């Protein structure tokens, strides 16, 4: 078996300073491995430490204890050079929640160019990357527009293009769909799925939206600073009680089937997809 792209061992993290007495552990003993090319959704209630975990993965924050390996390199090694650090940040890109707070330039293409410019890429190569990144997210025709006139979903796609232009191997989306309307959400989700499928980019998608989580290869639930549940969407969402205890919902269909089977109706309890659920229900009603 190949080495996982991300490997996290016994992470401990706290925002308090070292000598405060009553420490609040945001992450405690969090261990996780993520394969290259996978599409992982991270769930957890507000304040469960998801954003903190994301920021640890590209060294915006550094852990109190524990090890983080990115592509085999130990980024928690105190001897790590600044160049290694920037290489990590290039490999592991991050897209945030509020599209307004992550765009730096007043013209779309100049914003997309920001990352590669920081990396010291040749001008002609930057031009090529910017054009192809905008093409990938379907924003080519807006290349010379001002970002503040775009819709939320469009801004978020520009932000994604800005990360793609750095040619990352993994992109972390920290609730990047949370502030968008349903249409913007769909635009961004399609872009994310496309990046994962066509370019083999590892995706870590932090979300509150269960219907988005259902589309992932794997769902990881973080609760009280630890991995609480981990598995395929079917496996994770079959633990309805456990999820409720962690302050999370399950998709509505799943909840319906769970309650039905709890009341003695002979139906499977691990249905995730609405169409599938509807078919099973109508077949069952006809019986």
């Amino acid at each position, binding site marked *: 078996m190949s080495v996982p792209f991300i490997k996290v061992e016994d992470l401990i993290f706290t925002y308090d300073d070292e000598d405060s007495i009553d420490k609040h552990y945001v992450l405690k003993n969090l261990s996780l491995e993520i394969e290259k090319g996978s599409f992982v959704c991270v769930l957890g209630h507000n304040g469960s430490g998801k954003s903190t975990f994301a*920021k640890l993965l*590209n060294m*915006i924050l550094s852990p109190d204890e524990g090890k983080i390996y990115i592509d085999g390199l130990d980024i928690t090694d105190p001897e790590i050079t*600044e160049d290694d650090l*920037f290489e990590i*940040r*290039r490999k592991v*890109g*991050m897209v*945030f929640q*509020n599209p*307004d*707070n*992550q*765009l*730096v*330039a*007043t*013209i779309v*293409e*100049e914003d997309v*160019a*920001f*990352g*590669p*410019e*920081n*990396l*010291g*890429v*040749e*001008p002609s190569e*930057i*031009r090529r990357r*910017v054009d192809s990144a905008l093409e990938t997210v379907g924003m080519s025709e807006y290349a*010379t527009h*001002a970002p*503040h006139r775009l819709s939320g979903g469009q801004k978020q796609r520009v932000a994604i293009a*800005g*990360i793609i232009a*750095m040619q990352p191997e993994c992109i972390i989306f920290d609730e990047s769909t949370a502030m968008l309307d349903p249409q913007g959400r769909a635009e961004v989700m399609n872009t994310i799925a496309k990046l994962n499928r066509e370019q083999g980019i590892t995706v870590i998608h932090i979300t509150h939206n269960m219907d988005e989580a259902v589309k992932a290869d794997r769902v990881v639930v973080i609760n009280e600073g630890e991995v609480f549940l981990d598995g395929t969407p079917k496996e994770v969402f079959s633990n309805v009680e456990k999820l409720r205890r962690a302050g999370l919902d399950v998709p509505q269909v799943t909840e319906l089937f769970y309650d039905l089977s709890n009341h003695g109706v002979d139906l499977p309890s691990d249905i995730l997809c609405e169409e599938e659920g509807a078919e099973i229900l109508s077949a069952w009603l006809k019986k």
Partner: protein
Amino acid sequence: MLKDITLGQFFPGRSFLHRIDPRTKIIAALLYIVAVFLCDSIMSFIILLAATLALIALSGVPVKIIVKGLKPLIFILAFTTIYNVFFYKGDHILVHWKFITIYLEGVVFALIMGLRIICLLTGSSVLMTYTTSPIMLTDGIERLLSPLNKIKAPVHEFAMMMSIALRFIPTLVEETDKIMCAQKARGADFSSGGLIKRARALIPVLVPLFISAFRRASDLAVAMECRCYRGGSGRTRMTKTHFGARDVILFTATVILGTVIVLSNIYFPIWMI
């Protein structure tokens, strides 16, 4: 509308002026501004107007847009015109009615001031803001000021701050609008009472605005770090501009403009004030 003041100005294109190095444009704009203030005679104003029209033509920006851009000037123009027409004292009385006396010199001066203000804004914005994106502009300033790096002046940081400020003006204006609406919905009143009462009414707007601005700033800092930002060293630019034939042409033309204006003041001193 308000949020378009700084940004709506850039007019993407590939005209003669668009393709000139921002540094040349900044210097040319400074020379042009000096030339505007040197204008003193009717002849020099004709030359200045011709030069300004030529600049507009070279920028490829539609005249309609430029005229629209002059709208915020209406108040200043009206004020200076009225002030000069009624209060400027001279020798040639044009109208004398009760306590109002209008002198010929006042009218001429008002005309000159109006023309100066219009040319000043049109010329410098055609040279800079209409044809140069804010990033290119701050980039140009950064490179012009780069000798100051030798005395450890934070030139790159200064330029970065400026371009980020420009980027966030529309966002913050929009947010101010929203907060004001929210406070109005709670019964705040921004449009009545004296100066002090109105100023005080703004506090519930400014406090949330500042808090949100700081949150945005810290979000942006993290986002920039994630995009490998580490200051100016080792950074390249997508559009690398070079001085070329166009730059020489523009620079020479503005120098000639200044010279011709001075000469015309000396040799055709008609209507000199």
